[in-house]
C-alpha cells in the first residue's frame, strides 16, 4: 500500500538520529556518580594461577575495589553455562567443563579476565590494573585446529584426557565409504575455514547500576536482544529474581552473532555495581575485544563426493574439525551440526551422507556464531565440491549444479538432518546471476586481461541458508492517545532497520501513517515476555509476523467496536486503508482507538483499549538462497587480486524494503570478501594472538570491492504468511565460494589446484610459483 507499505524503498527512521550524533550507544550513557572498571587479563594461554596480589592496586589513587575469581566464589556467583548435549556413538556424553566468570586456579587463553579493578576514573582503574600482580606457573599450550587432536598435544582439560569435546556422527560411514569407492568419479576437497575476528565497530562495553532499596539491577550493554541475557544473569549468575534484572540496549554498533552472548565482563560490571552500590562502567578497548570477544568460524573440513558419469552426485562424506576454544561458549559447539549440518548438502539432492564432527578444545578464546553460523561453512564445502566435480568430469560449473539442484517439484524437501525446504527456484536464480554477469561473454574478457599480462577468472557459487531459528517471538502494539502506534518488540534492531520496516508493516496492515508508528526494543522492562532477540536472520519473519498477528487482532476487535459505533453487525464491517466501513458509513481506526478508551462507546462486556499483545509461533524456519558470480583479475607477478565485478542474486522471498535488504546483501558479501581475501586469526605455537589489532588483522576496506549488483529472484516463502526469507546472512554464505571459484578459474589452467583462504597476495603468488615450478620440471 502506498509509498510506505511492503516492498517500498522507504528511507530509514533511524538515520537522522544516527547521522547527527544522536545515537545512544552504551559508552554514550553516563550514570550519576559512576565509577570505572578495568580488567586484568591473562598474558598466558595456559597457566596455573599460583597467587594474585592485589594489595598494591588497592592502595592506589582512586581505587575502590579489586575483585578476583575467589571473590565471586565467595559471593556465590554462578557459572557461565552451555546447554548443548551431544553424545558419542558409544554413548559417552560430550565433555562439558565448567567455566567460572573469572577462573580461580588456572587460565586457559590469552586475554581471559582474571581480576577486575574499580576506580573513580578510567585512567586510575587502568593504572591500578597494571599493578595487580599474578604469579603464573606457565604450562604448554595448544592453539592449532590442525594439531589439537594429535597424540601428545597439550591438553586444555587434562582430567578429560583429550581435547576432543565429542565425536558426533550422522549416517553410515561404512556404507558411504563403499559407495564412494564404487562411484564413477570421486572428488575430494580439503578446506580450511579460517578463524575470524567478528569485529562489530562498537567495542564491547557495559554499565550497571543497582538500586538497593528495590533490589533491582539495570545493565546497559550492546546486545542482540536482552531477554536471554537477563535470564542468564539473574538465574544462573547473580541469583536474583529475573524481574529484578533489567537489560537495556539503546543503540548497538553491530552484532553479527557474538553480541547475543553473555561475557564475563558484563557479569563483573553487574556484580560490582551490586556490591558497591555505585554505577560501574566499562568500555573495552579494541585490543581487549580482539582477545575476548568470541571469534568466528575456525573449521577444517575434508569432504568427498561420488558422482556418476553425467555429473549426478549420489554420495557425500564430510568430516569436520571445529576449534571451540578453551571452553564451551553458548553456541559454538553446535554450529557444524545445528547451524550448517541441517542444511547440508545445501541446494543439492544427494541421498547418501555421512557426517563426522569433532569439536575440540584449544587454548584460545571460544568461537561462536558469526554471520551465517555454520551455513557459510556448509555452503563452502558443497560449492568447492561442485567445482571439483565439474573439473573432474570436464563439465561446466553451472551444468553440474543444475544437474544436482533440488527442484521445486521435489519440495517440500527434507534434508538429512531435519530441515524441510519449502520453496526456491535454484536454477532460475543461478541463471539470473549468470545472465547479469555476462557469464557467456567471459572468455573475451579473459583474453583482454591476458593481453595485459593478467589472469582473469570468473566464479560461481550458489547457496542456501536456514533463517529464523527459534521461531517464537512476542510483539505488543499500543495505541497512543494522539493516534500514534507504539510497538514493543523482543527482536532488537542493531543496524537492520526494524524501526522502519515494522512501521511499513503497520502502515500496510492498519493504514497508520508511517511517521506515527514507533518502535521500542532493547529493553527487557518493556519487551514482550516471550522474546528471543535478533539473530540468524529471523526478525523479518518472527518480528514481521508478530506485527501482522497483532494487526489482525486489532482489526478483529476494532471491527466489533466499529460495528457497535456504526450500529451494524461486525460481519458487515470491512477494514481497508485504516478505515472500518459498513455500506455508506465509516469510522477510522484512530476513531475506533479513541472510542475504545470510553466504556460508553464500547460494546457491552468488551475490555477497554485496542492494545494487543501476541506471540507468533512457527515450527519451521525459512530458506533464503542465492547465486553469486564474482569476476576478478590476478597479477601473476605479485599475486595481487582485484575484484572487477560482483553480481549477487538473492531469493529472500518477499522483500519488505529493498533498500534495506540490498544493504544486508552488500554488507554480508563484504564480510565474505574479508574472509576470502584479508581476514585471518593467527595464534603462535604458545597461544599468543599475533593478529591482535587492526594493524595486523586485515579488515576489508572500501577499496576491496567495486560497485556490486544485487538482484532479487522473489520466490515467496511458504513457511510464513509474509512470504519473507531472512536476508542477513546470505552474502557471507555466497562470497567466499564465489571468490574461490573465480580464483580457481583464473589459476587452474596454469596448474594451481588448491589454495586456502584468505587469498593473500603472497599465497596466490606462491601457488603460481609452485605450479610454474611443477610445469617447468
Amino acid at each position, binding site marked *: 500500500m502506498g509509498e510506505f507499505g511492503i516492498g517500498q524503498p522507504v528511507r530509514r527512521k533511524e538515520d537522522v538520529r544516527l547521522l547527527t550524533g544522536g545515537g545512544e550507544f552504551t559508552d554514550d550513557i553516563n550514570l550519576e556518580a559512576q565509577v570505572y572498571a578495568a580488567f586484568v587479563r591473562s598474558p598466558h594461554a595456559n597457566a596455573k594461577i599460583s597467587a594474585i596480589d592485589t594489595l598494591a592496586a588497592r592502595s592506589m589513587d582512586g581505587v575502590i575495589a579489586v575483585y578476583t575469581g575467589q571473590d565471586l566464589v565467595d559471593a556465590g556467583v554462578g557459572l557461565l553455562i552451555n546447554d548443548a548435549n551431544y553424545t558419542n556413538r558409544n554413548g559417552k556424553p560430550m565433555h562439558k567443563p565448567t567455566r567460572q566468570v573469572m577462573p580461580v586456579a588456572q587460565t586457559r587463553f590469552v586475554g581471559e579476565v582474571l581480576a577486575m579493578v574499580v576506580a573513580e576514573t578510567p*585512567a586510575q582503574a587502568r*593504572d591500578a590494573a*597494571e599493578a595487580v600482580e599474578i604469579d603464573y606457573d606457565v604450562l604448554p599450550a595448544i592453539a592449532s585446529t590442525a594439531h589439537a587432536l594429535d597424540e601428545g598435544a597439550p591438553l586444555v582439560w587434562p582430567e578429560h584426557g583429550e581435547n576432543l569435546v565429542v565425536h558426533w556422527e550422522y549416517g553410515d560411514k561404512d556404507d558411504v565409504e563403499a559407495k564412494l569407492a564404487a562411484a564413477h568419479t570421486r572428488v575430494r576437497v580439503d578446506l580450511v575455514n579460517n578463524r575470524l575476528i567478528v569485529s562489530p565497530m562498537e567495542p564491547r562495553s557495559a554499565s550497571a547500576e543497582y538500586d538497593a532499596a528495590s533490589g533491582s539491577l539495570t545493565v546497559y550493554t550492546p546486545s542482540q536482544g536482552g531477554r536471554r541475557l537477563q535470564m542468564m544473569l539473574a538465574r544462573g549468575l547473580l541469583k536474583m529474581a529475573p524481574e529484578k534484572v533489567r537489560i537495556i540496549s539503546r543503540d548497538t554498533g553491530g552484532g553479527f552473532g557474538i553480541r547475543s552472548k553473555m561475557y564475563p565482563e558484563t557479569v563483573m560490571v553487574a556484580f560490582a555495581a551490586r556490591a558497591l552500590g555505585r554505577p560501574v562502567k566499562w568500555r573495552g578497548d579494541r*585490543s581487549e575485544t580482539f582477545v575476548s570477544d568470541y571469534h568466528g568460524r575456525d573449521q577444517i573440513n575434508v569432504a568427498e563426493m561420488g558422482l556418476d558419469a553425467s555429473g549426478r552426485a549420489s554420495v557425500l562424506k564430510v568430516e569436520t574439525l571445529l576449534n571451540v576454544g578453551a571452553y564451551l561458549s553458548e553456541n559454538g559447539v553446535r554450529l557444524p551440526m545445528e547451524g550448517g549440518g541441517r542444511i547440508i548438502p545445501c541446494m543439492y539432492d544427494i541421498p547418501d551422507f555421512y557426517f563426522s564432527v569433532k569439536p575440540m578444545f584449544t587454548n584460545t578464546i571460544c568461537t561462536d556464531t558469526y554471520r551465517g553460523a555454520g551455513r557459510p561453512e556448509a555452503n563452502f564445502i558443497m560449492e568447492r565440491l561442485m567445482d571439483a566435480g565439474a573439473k573432474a568430469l570436464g563439465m561446466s560449473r553451472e551444468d553440474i549444479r543444475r544437474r544436482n539442484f533440488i527442484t521445486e517439484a521435489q519440495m517440500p524437501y527434507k534434508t538429512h538432518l531435519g530441515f524441510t525446504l519449502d520453496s526456491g527456484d535454484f536454477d532460475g536464480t543461478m541463471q539470473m546471476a549468470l545472465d547479469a554477469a555476462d557469464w557467456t561473454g567471459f572468455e573475451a574478457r579473459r583474453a583482454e586481461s591476458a593481453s595485459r599480462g593478467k589472469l582473469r577468472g570468473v566464479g560461481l557459487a550458489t547457496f542456501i541458508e536456514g533463517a529464523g531459528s527459534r521461531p517464537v517471538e512476542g510483539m505488543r502494539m499500543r495505541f497512543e492517545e494522539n493516534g500514534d502506534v507504539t510497538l514493543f518488540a523482543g527482536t532488537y534492531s542493531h543496524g537492520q532497520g526494524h524501526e522502519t520496516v515494522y512501521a511499513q508493516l503497520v502502515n500496510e496492515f492498519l493504514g497508520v501513517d508511517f511517521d506515527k508508528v514507533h518502535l521500542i526494543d532493547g529493553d527487557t522492562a518493556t519487551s514482550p515476555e516471550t522474546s528471543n532477540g535478533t539473530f540468524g536472520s529471523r526478525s523479518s519473519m518472527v518480528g514481521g509476523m508478530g506485527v501482522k498477528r497483532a494487526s489482525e487482532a486489532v482489526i478483529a476487535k476494532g471491527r466489533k467496536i466499529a460495528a457497535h459505533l456504526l450500529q451494524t453487525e461486525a460481519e458487515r464491517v470491512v477494514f481497508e486503508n485504516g478505515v472500518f466501513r459498513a455500506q455508506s458509513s465509516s469510522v477510522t481506526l484512530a476513531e475506533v482507538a479513541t472510542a475504545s478508551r470510553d466504556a460508553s462507546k464500547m460494546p457491552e462486556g468488551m475490555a477497554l483499549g485496542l492494545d494487543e499483545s501476541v506471540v507468533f509461533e512457527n515450527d519451521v524456519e525459512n530458506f533464503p538462497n542465492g547465486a553469486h558470480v564474482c569476476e576478478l583479475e590476478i597479477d601473476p*607477478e*605479485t599475486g595481487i587480486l582485484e575484484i572487477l565485478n560482483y553480481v549477487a542474486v538473492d531469493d529472500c522471498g518477499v522483500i519488505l524494503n529493498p533498500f534495506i535488504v540490498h544493504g544486508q546483501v552488500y554488507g554480508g558479501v563484504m564480510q565474505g570478501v574479508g574472509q576470502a581475501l*584479508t581476514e*585471518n586469526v*593467527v595464534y603462535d605455537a604458545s597461544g599468543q594472538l*599475533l*593478529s591482535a589489532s*587492526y*594493524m*595486523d*588483522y*586485515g*579488515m576489508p576496506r572500501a577499496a576491496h570491492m567495486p560497485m556490486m549488483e544485487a538482484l532479487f529472484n522473489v520466490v515467496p516463502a511458504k513457511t510464513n504468511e509474509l512470504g519473507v526469507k531472512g536476508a542477513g546472512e546470505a552474502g557471507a554464505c555466497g562470497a567466499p565460494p564465489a571468490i574461490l571459484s573465480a580464483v580457481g578459474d583464473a589459476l587452474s589452467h596454469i596448474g594451481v589446484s588448491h589454495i586456502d583462504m584468505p587469498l*593473500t*597476495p*603472497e599465497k596466490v*603468488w*606462491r601457488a603460481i610459483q609452485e605450479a610454474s615450478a611443477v610445469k617447468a620440471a
Partner: protein
Amino acid sequence: MHNFNYHRAADVADASGKLTSLEDPKILAGGMTLLPTLKNRLAAPSDLIDLAAIADLKGVSVEGDEVVVRAMTPHAVVAASAEVQKALPALAQLAGNIGDPAVRHRGTIGGSVANSDPAADYPAGCVGLDATIVTNKRKIAADDFFLGLFETALEEGEVITSVRFKIPTRAHYMKFRHPASGYAVVGVMVAQYGSKARVAVTGAGPCVFRLSEMEAALEKSFAPSSIANIKVSAEQLMGDIHCSAEYRAHLITVYARRAVEAMV
C-alpha cells in the same frame, strides 16, 4: 596511557633544551606513531615536548636544486603542494600514499624520519632522493641518518628542522601496502640523477637500505630490463604473518622494475 608532563616548545632551542634537561622526554610531532604507542602503554615518557607551535618548522619550498620540507609539515601538505608536484612529483605521490587522509593531515615528515620505522615511507624518499636531514645542530646525509630498527643518527638534544630533497632528473615511488595497517610492506624509490641512480627500499628490512647492484645496472642503462632479473636476497629481510621475507625480496625486484617502467 600513563600520564606525562606536556610542554609546548616556543622554538627549536627551547625544545632542544628541554630534551636535554628533562628526565625521559620525547618530542611530539604529529603523534601518529607516538600516541598509539603511549595509548597501548608500550612507552611511558616523563615529558612530551610539542613542536606544533613553532611556526618556522612548517611549509615546503623549492630552493635551487632542492625541495625543502620543514619538519612539522604534514604529509597532506607535501602531497597537495603544487610546487612539490611540479618539482618532485615522486615525493608528492609518496606523501599522498602514507596512511590515510586523516593521518596525512597530522603526521609530519620530521616525526616519520626521526622514528625510522622500518615500514614508514619517508625513509625511502629521503635515501632515494639523496636528502639531507637538517637538525638544529648539523646537516646529516640521509645515507648516514638511518642506522637501524627505530635507530637514527640523532644525538641528544638534536631536533630535526627540515629535510632537503635533491631534485632528480626523474624518480618514481612504488609501494605495496600492508593489507591491515597500510604501512609499506615494500616501498621502492627509484631516482635518476644524470648518470647516477638511486634505489632505496623501505618496509622490507630493519630500516631503509639501498640496492647498489640495481643502481649500478641502472647507471649503465636506465631501463626496466636492466634490473628485472636482479634478485634480492631474503636473508636480511623481515617477515610477518602477512608477507614473508622471501616474498618481500621478490616484490622489491618487481616494484623497482615497475618504478622504472613508470618513468621511461
